[in-house]
């Protein structure tokens, strides 16, 4: 069988699909506002004339590479290319400002490669098993996952946790805007059609992260003589330092990468959770397990590693319910599913058990794994060229970034309203930064707030005549996340208390 799979894989059209998918995916991921979903839907017509394996390898490559490509602009320009790169932007950009941008990109490449391959291997080895696990999750579980996720906000707050909670609550508020799921009631929309489905994520991100960054930079430039004396930060940064991590560092960081990849795959499997959550979970895992947490947010390379490993593992994870159950684990994989059906590959467990179908599906999965490797090579090749972008004086590059951010914001829904949202959140984000309110919790608040409320109300609808608490108590996975939440909140306090006591003695 292996011989058959390999011979099916190494055909000219398949390799062609691999190369096209990887390069186009990289380009689309880098452009703000473009994402994997758009890339896949644009390229599907291109695949009509190609065979099934070649087409699916092309689309699969697009998916993983677009997710990776966004990390470039996230690291170099604080402009997340897709919403799953927002966590990378946090420490990645700080690293660029410290002249360690090359290391950040190298780390992102390593993490993405590891996560992507891990996801692909999980897919090959235990897809049907993991799919069954995915089915055990529903709204009650998502509610508890969301609550657990909200405790991560505490860890993103730096020195003043109260301010972190404030912005987290702001995120919850932003997430409330729009139609309430269980009753269809419109909240805070003021009859504006554009707000019926709430704020779109990427415009908010581009405002909070990118435009606010531009405004902060402007203020720095206002100091008399700042530019002339070359005191503007980032003006002509010298890029020193390494690119890829050493073998020793790789081994040291391997446990983190494995954990982040596992988390990413699990999140990818869940149809209710997306890649943007994956990157934050990976980031948080890196921080949680670090000895010195204070470096996070200030250019900690492990933060970049955690988020990039997890968000590429999500791609592999999203394939699992897609291929085994025909249930796409994300928007992008939903479009992929149409590609599968167009080429006669009906999703279902039989893809993995029927020998005739195995001859088609296994080359596709291996092709996906190869795409990750190719992506890594391509990334490494262009990284040293792309990094020069950060060397361009800030005042020359800022207008470009502003234009790209606005156009990226526009292209999601072809809407000028979204452009307005970006500009408005840019202003809000600027004040937040000046007043030392962290911006990252807003993003989590939006995603998790919606998940928590929707999960809670759907649980109320699902429980029939049982009591709500009884309903939750009957579900083991809810217990798991409940305990994790308690642990997450109280463990640090308990640890501190124990430390103090042992110091007294």
């Amino acid at each position, binding site marked *: 069988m292996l011989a058959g799979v390999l011979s099916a894989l190494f055909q000219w059209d398949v390799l062609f699909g691999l190369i096209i998918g990887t390069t186009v995916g990289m380009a689309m991921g880098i452009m703000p506002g473009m994402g994997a979903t758009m890339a896949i839907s644009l390229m599907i017509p291109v695949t009509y004339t190609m065979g099934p394996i070649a087409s699916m390898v092309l689309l699969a490559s697009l998916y993983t590479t677009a997710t990776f490509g966004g990390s470039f602009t996230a690291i170099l320009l604080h402009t997340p290319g897709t919403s799953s790169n927002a966590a990378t932007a946090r420490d990645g950009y700080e690293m660029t400002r410290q002249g360690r941008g090359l290391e950040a990109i190298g780390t992102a490449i390593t993490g993405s490669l590891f996560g992507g391959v891990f996801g692909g291997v999980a897919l090959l080895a235990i897809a049907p098993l993991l799919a069954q696990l995915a089915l055990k999750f529903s709204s009650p579980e998502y509610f508890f996952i969301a609550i657990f996720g909200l405790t991560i906000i505490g860890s993103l707050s730096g020195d003043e946790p*109260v301010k972190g909670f404030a912005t987290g609550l702001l995120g919850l*508020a932003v997430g409330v805007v729009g139609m309430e799921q269980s*009753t269809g009631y419109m909240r805070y929309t003021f009859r504006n059609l554009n707000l019926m489905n709430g704020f779109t994520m990427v415009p908010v991100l581009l405002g909070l992260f990118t435009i606010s960054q531009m405004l902060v930079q402007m203020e720095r430039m206002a100091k008399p003589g700042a*530019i002339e004396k070359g005191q503007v930060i980032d003006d002509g940064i010298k890029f020193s330092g390494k690119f890829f991590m050493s073998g020793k560092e790789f081994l040291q960081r391997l446990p983190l990468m494995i954990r982040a990849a596992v988390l990413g795959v699990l999140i990818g499997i869940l149809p209710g959770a997306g890649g943007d959550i994956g990157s934050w979970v990976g980031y948080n895992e890196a921080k949680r397990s670090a000895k010195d947490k204070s470096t996070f947010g200030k250019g900690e390379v492990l933060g970049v590693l955690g988020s990039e490993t997890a968000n590429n593992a999500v791609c592999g994870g999203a394939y699992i319910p897609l291929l085994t159950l025909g249930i796409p684990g994300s928007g992008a994989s939903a479009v992929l599913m149409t590609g599968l059906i167009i080429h006669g590959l009906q999703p279902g467990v039989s893809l993995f058990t029927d020998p005739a179908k195995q001859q088609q599906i296994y080359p596709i999965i291996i092709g996906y794994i190869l795409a990750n490797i190719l992506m890594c090579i391509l990334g490494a090749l262009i990284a040293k060229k792309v990094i020069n972008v950060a060397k361009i004086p800030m005042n020359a590059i800022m207008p470009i970034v502003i234009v790209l951010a*606005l156009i990226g914001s526009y292209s999601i829904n072809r809407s*000028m309203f979204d452009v*307005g949202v970006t500009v408005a959140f840019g202003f809000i984000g600027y004040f937040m930064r000046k007043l030392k309110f962290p911006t990252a919790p807003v993003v989590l608040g939006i995603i998790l707030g919606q998940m928590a409320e929707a999960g809670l109300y759907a649980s109320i609808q699902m429980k029939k005549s049982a009591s709500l608490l009884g309903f939750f108590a009957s579900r083991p996975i809810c217990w798991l996340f409940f305990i994790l939440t308690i642990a997450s909140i109280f463990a640090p306090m308990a640890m501190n208390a124990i430390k103090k006591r042992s110091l007294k003695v």
Partner: protein
Amino acid sequence: MKNKLHIDVYAGIVMIAFAAWWILEASKFPVVPRRFPMFVGIAFALVAVLIIIGGIKKSKASWTANEEPKAVIQWSGFKYTLIGFAGIVLYAVAINYIHFFPATLIFVPLMMLFLRVRKWHQIVLTDLILNGLIWLIFVYELKITLP
């Protein structure tokens, strides 16, 4: 000078105002849709109070040290940012009225001049290359209708 408050106090006041408006709007909703926004609004107000308290503490600390509380926003720098922001807003509005490419062709050099880029060739090249690339990728290749 002595009685200057830390900026966190002002931030907290703005937050409370927002929370008040938020809660007022939420009180108009029916029961089920009202619950979560109410929770968020009340929690936000409580956190705002904590921030105001923290701000007062910081102000007092700086009074005892006989320093001015560190003004986080200097007017001179802020003025500059405000003008830059106004430029961005005008650009967004302009896109709506005179369409994307004319607006961008004008915005880029103006913003670069504002940011004190002095090399003329840099300005012209950037403007042309940026617009050219956007046209190539978005309009020609992807065929997206820009505003």
